């Protein structure tokens, strides 16, 4: 098992290098805004733009720029400096990461719980009115754009602009360490919005998975043992049904840790997603490269964790 993990980690490192290279190339080759020009302001003279280009190291050859960049990351963990504020990318990311982590993990907990609850009930009462209503609602939520849901949530419940003023609105996020109470309440609406779509997906997933599992022979055996139906469903059925769901959960969390831009924007949460988006509009390459790298790292790690967890959860997999 250790050899397996080590192998995966090495492979992951290679993947990170590839991702860096790809980001690097894409942003310099595609017709995005020229960062030197954007930094100078559109009004600047070509001479000024050229000077800034030298400042930012953009006058060097692409391979040379790339080599310097790679060296910086892998030898010094230096992700470069923002073209705009000259703040170090690493510090910017470290500053924004807690918000994204708070948002992601909280939402994941909620959508997993909700998805499980609804999915199990739906599976057990298949084709009942309850099941149809639940799956119908799920379909609507899956189709609803996150951004729109966020706006609706604010217009309904935000203390500053909502109809029912019960929860803190956009911009109320504070770090966990500065005010735990406010941190928690400011995240409730964003969690719910982020969880809504996913809960719906997971409910459908779990429903499907559980229905399939409940048709298995070993469920019949469990019943034949005289176990209560509740135990059969929750211990025997769910235990099998949850495996595929867990792997997906791991991947979803990995992706979200790269930043949930839409929710972060609507609720004004200073996370990685928003940082990335702002950097893109300014062609602030170092930040973009940094955030993409961090996001890729999360996904790679999530993949490895999920694979290992799966082996742990399903003993049959370990044999191979």
């Amino acid at each position, binding site marked *: 098992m250790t050899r397996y993990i080590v192998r995966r980690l090495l492979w992951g490192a290679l993947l990170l290098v590839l991702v860096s290279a790809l980001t690097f190339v894409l942003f310099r080759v595609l017709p995005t805004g020229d960062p030197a020009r954007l930094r100078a302001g559109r009004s600047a003279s070509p001479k000024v733009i050229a000077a800034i280009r030298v400042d930012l190291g953009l006058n060097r050859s692409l391979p040379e720029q790339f080599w310097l960049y790679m060296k910086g990351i892998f030898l010094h963990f230096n992700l470069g400096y923002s073209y705009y504020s000259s703040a170090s990318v690493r510090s910017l990311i470290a500053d924004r990461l807690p918000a994204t982590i708070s948002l992601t993990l909280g939402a994941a907990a909620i959508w997993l719980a909700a998805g499980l609850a609804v999915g199990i009930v739906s599976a057990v009462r298949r084709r009942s009115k309850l099941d149809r209503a639940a799956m119908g609602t799920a379909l609507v939520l899956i189709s609803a754009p996150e951004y729109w849901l966020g706006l609706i949530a604010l217009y309904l419940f935000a203390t500053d602009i909502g109809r029912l003023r019960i929860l803190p609105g956009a911009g109320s996020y504070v770090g966990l360490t500065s005010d735990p109470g406010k941190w928690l309440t400011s995240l409730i609406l964003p969690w719910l919005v982020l969880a809504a779509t996913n809960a719906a997906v997971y409910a459908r997933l779990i429903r499907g998975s559980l229905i399939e599992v409940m048709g298995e*022979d070993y469920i019949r055996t469990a*019943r034949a043992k005289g*176990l209560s139906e509740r135990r059969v469903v929750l211990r025997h059925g769910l235990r099998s049904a949850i495996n595929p769901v867990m792997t997906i959960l791991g991947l979803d969390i990995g992706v979200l840790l790269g930043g949930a831009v839409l929710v972060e924007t609507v609720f004004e949460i200073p996370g990685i997603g928003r940082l990335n988006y702002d950097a893109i509009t300014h062609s602030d390459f170092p930040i973009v490269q940094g955030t993409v790298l961090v996001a890729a790292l999360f996904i790679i790690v999530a993949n490895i964790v999920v694979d290992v967890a799966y082996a742990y959860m399903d003993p049959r997999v370990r044999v191979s």
Partner: protein
Amino acid sequence: MSDEPLLRVEDLRVEFPTEDGVVHALDGVSYELRAGATLGIVGESGSGKTVLSLTTMGLTRGLRARISGSIGLEGRDLLALSERQMQAVRGNDIAMIFQDPMSSLHPLFRIGDQLAEAVRAHRKASRGEARARAVALLEMAALPDPERQALSYPHELSGGMRQRAMIAMALANEPKLLIADEPTTALDVTVQAQILALLSRLQRELGMAMVIITHDLAVVAEVAQEIAVMYAGRIVESAPAGQIFSQPEHPYTWGLLQSIPTLEGSRSERLVPIAGAPPSLIDRPSGCHFHPRCPYAKPDHARIDPPLEAVVGEPGHRVACLLAADERRRIWTGMR
């Protein structure tokens, strides 16, 4: 041992409404089983043998099945029990083992845990006690190194060992009746004999009744005292085991016997399959269900339902056939 049969099934009918129509799975089945006795139920797929055993366990409830008749266990009608009461019976008074132990054991739990669970479902026992009992059960089922096996997962065991484990699990609470649905079908021939031997031994040791369901006459020949042949949801013949083989009365039984390969027969002797296909349970043939495939059917066999009647001169032998008894004898003698 009392004279009262352990299990008395009376006129059991089970129907399942489906999109394509109503499936008549059991069409008035009646039989008795004494404590400690072994009954073999033989039939093709679709004969209703599995539904019969599942219904006895109460596992066909809730599938929108329409069940009528009665299943008396020591005088208690199981069909009248609530689900909770039935849960107390399953795995406790009546236990069941299934055809494929690989798919019938939970792949993600250890064997020992699954057995311990069966124990704790019906009696108060601490974790440690249940686990100890699990190991003891595995030992009783002749599993080598039962301590280690208890920690294994189903996929780590061979087919034969898995079936032993399943048997051990079924016997955890010393049931009065064990239903074994095709217990050897998924196993190698050599292992089959071992399992059958195990079942016989355990039955004797625990004094429990057993119902073995199979499509293979050879299996029941070894262990059953009494054999019932089912076709299209009905018992068409039932008799003490020896008589089924020496003096079968039903044309379907003849077909079954003729399609068994034997070591004694010459190599050139051709196996004779039963002509035709099993009937649809939605749209069954009227009258005698077997008449479309019966070489000896007469026109009015399509109209009249043959009742299950005793055979004159052979105690314990019943058959549901509209042919006259002597005519049947004549045909059978000609076939041998």
